């Protein structure tokens, strides 16, 4: 539904988007990740038809956004960063305006406004000026505006930024509920969001795509992916460490004050072996835990170019 092919955009000497390609299919929620200023918003503005790319192209529903701008804008719901809206209007007049621009009139218009207001639960504040609303409600007004015409393609720039945990949860539930019959592109710099709503994530840094995969695939690129943490008293750890180093499949063992971390060699699983070993030797340990890998680590590694340690690191460095 969204296809981006070798997109480039520069602002003077700054390259905001550099050769970015990816696609989003129906039913997918693509998380567009990256540090602030990485070029996420610029790329989204190009897809939404607000900015023209310098080179490359963006297709929405098979239509080129620069050639068929108006047609694309009809099929697309877009919430710009910060969900700007006309502050002096009330949600109901604002949504009415959006509905008129989108070609709704009469009963249809009322229906569209009611539907969008229901979905985003704007009920109580429909007749209050937008400038008096809390940030959470303003964000919902912005979302309602993007959803009003039930678009096939939805682009949301930082939909949960600045919301409290409850509001974030609501926003994510809403996005997940809409996901099956739409193609959704959301940007965020919150990694928890990816696991919570996205079926795929693209990480972008300094305008370039540095990683593209499902949340699980990205986690697998963490240096601590499948590492085993053993929590025990210091003397136990001291006896355990050399034994683990000899164990088949274990790469590197790091001993800390109250825990040790055993990272497996590439493609090896050592959790069960370590469990068995600890039980056989009757060692006094409080916990043996398998680490799936933190997206944070992957994010930091791929966006700052920091060298990863361990086997998984070598794999990420090859990519």
């Amino acid at each position: 539904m969204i296809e981006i092919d070798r997109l480039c955009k520069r602002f003077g000497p700054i390259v905001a988007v550099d050769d970015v390609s990816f696609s989003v299919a129906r039913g997918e929620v693509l998380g567009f990740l990256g540090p602030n200023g990485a070029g996420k918003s610029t790329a989204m503005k190009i897809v939404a038809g607000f900015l023209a790319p310098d080179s490359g192209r963006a297709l929405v529903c098979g239509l080129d956004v620069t050639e068929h701008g108006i047609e694309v804008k009809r099929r697309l719901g877009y919430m710009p960063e910060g969900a700007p809206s006309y502050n002096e209007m009330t949600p109901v007049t604002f949504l009415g305006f959006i509905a008129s621009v989108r070609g709704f009139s009469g009963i249809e218009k009322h229906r569209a406004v009611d539907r969008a207001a229901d979905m985003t639960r704007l009920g109580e504040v429909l007749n209050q000026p937008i400038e008096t609303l809390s940030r959470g409600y303003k964000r919902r007004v912005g979302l309602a505006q993007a959803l009003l015409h039930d678009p096939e393609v939805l682009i949301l720039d930082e939909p949960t930024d600045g919301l409290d945990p409850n509001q974030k949860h609501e926003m994510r539930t809403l996005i997940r509920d809409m996901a099956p019959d739409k193609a959704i592109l959301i940007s965020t710099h919150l990694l928890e969001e990816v696991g919570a709503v996205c079926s795929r994530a693209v990480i972008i840094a300094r305008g370039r795509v540095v990683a593209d995969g499902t949340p699980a695939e990205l986690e697998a690129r963490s240096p601590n992916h499948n590492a085993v943490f053993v929590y025990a008293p210091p003397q136990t750890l001291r006896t355990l460490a050399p034994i683990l180093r000899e164990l088949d499949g274990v790469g590197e063992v790091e001993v800390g004050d109250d825990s040790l971390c055993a990272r497996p060699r590439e493609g090896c699983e050592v959790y069960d072996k370590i469990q068995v070993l600890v039980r056989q030797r009757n060692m006094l340990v409080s916990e043996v835990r398998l680490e799936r890998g933190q997206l944070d680590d992957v994010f930091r590694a791929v966006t700052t170019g920091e060298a990863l340690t361990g086997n998984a690191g070598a794999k990420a460095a090859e990519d």
Partner: protein
Amino acid sequence: MGVMLAVFRREFVTYFVTPLAYVFIVIFLALAGTLTFFLGAFFDRGQADLQPFFSFHPWLYLLLVPAIAMRLWSEERKIGTIELLLTLPVSTTQAVLAKFLAAWAFTAIALALTFPLWLTVNYLGTPDNGVILASYIGSLIMAGAYLAVGACFSALTSNQVIAFVLAALVCLIFAVGGTPIVLEFFTGWAPAGVIDTIASLSFMSNFRAIARGVIDVSALVYFASVIAFFLFANVILVDLYKAR
């Protein structure tokens, strides 16, 4: 068409949602009245016409019309709604036209509210109402030219004050082009053709041509061209500067 109507309506209603409309109308009427009766010596002239009223319009608009126009695009840029507006199925040209027309309709209302003056002259004597109607039409068209300049400069910056000052400055140049102050500066050394061109490019002289009571085609064409030129520039500036 429906799209433009929606943008027009929103823009027009916005004037009345904020105090801007009421403040503007009150100031416009107060200034128009003051200038007509005191500086224009409406009663002392002893003539039943609105000439003193209309002769101040180029100066009145110089101050007030950029104030209406300054928010048209600056505000959208400042609060980021330009991104919302231009990602709706609206072309930049449609948005520029709809906003301009909304501001123009608003000035038309302010101008129409000066009708008590027209009632006054009709009560006091028997004026040539044809001339008055032509003057009103001319004044409205001239206001459109001022507005087009203002809208264009509003697209240039997200700062409304800068937009206002730039627009007022350019309007001033257009307004005084035909006055002796400017023309005398050129007489003596510039060829007569140049002086005539400068004079003919002024809002003032073209407005006077219409206000005489004959709808002067060349003056109409002149104002239409000014409006078209600045709206065209407006479209280009919006596209050029929308990304800040």
